[in-house]
């Protein structure tokens, strides 16, 4: 089973503060993804990456940046957190080609006060 870990698992931040969510995968997958989950919306794609050094905008990228410093690590950065970014954030990895399934981390619950 593929292994994707996220840290922190829970985070409380203040409005205007900087938040960094981290994701690590040990599957040697090329692709990594950040989603957020809100009630009634399922999961929505924020940013994704095809490999180290690459980041691409997803469907709802505004207010978020991403960083892929290595094959294993993919971070989501909120430079100026707002209460509307209170959500549960999921990271996933996958290869997109021969092994197209995505595997998800356990999620990070972020509350912005």
């Amino acid at each position, binding site marked *: 089973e593929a292994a994707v870990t996220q840290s922190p698992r829970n985070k409380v931040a203040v409005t205007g503060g900087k938040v960094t969510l981290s994701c690590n995968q040990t599957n040697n997958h090329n692709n990594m993804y950040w*989603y957020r989950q809100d009630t009634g919306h*399922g*999961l*929505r794609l924020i940013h*994704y990456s*095809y490999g180290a050094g690459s980041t691409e905008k997803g469907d709802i990228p505004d207010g978020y940046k991403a960083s892929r410093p290595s094959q294993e690590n993919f971070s989501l950065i909120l430079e100026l957190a707002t209460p509307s970014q209170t959500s*549960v954030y999921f990271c996933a990895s996958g290869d997109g080609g021969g092994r*197209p399934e995505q*595997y998800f981390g356990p999620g990070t619950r972020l509350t912005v006060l």
Partner: protein
Amino acid sequence: GDQVEQSPSALSLHEGTSSALRCNFTTTTRSVQWFRQNSRGSLINLFYLASGTKENGRLKSAFDSKELYSTLHIRDAQLEDSGTYFCAARVSGSALGRLHFGAGTQLIVIP
């Protein structure tokens, strides 16, 4: 817009009964994944299908790319099947590997 329409939004089943969840796609879809989200919030992979059907225990899934739908059948429902089920589609024309999620079906299995 919404490319994945999932139904029903909520479902209650008595233990031992069976039912089906459905996802309709509004555009050409290359493959579908089904997940269950448990009470701790973890997303558990159930199926990946690029065509046809797959079965795993009491669960069976089908994907018809021509008719633009996928189903998940739950047979002999058990209490541990409770949770929220999501389908997610890889849509033609989207960047490689991207998933578009349905809004989910909240399933409660009643003793």
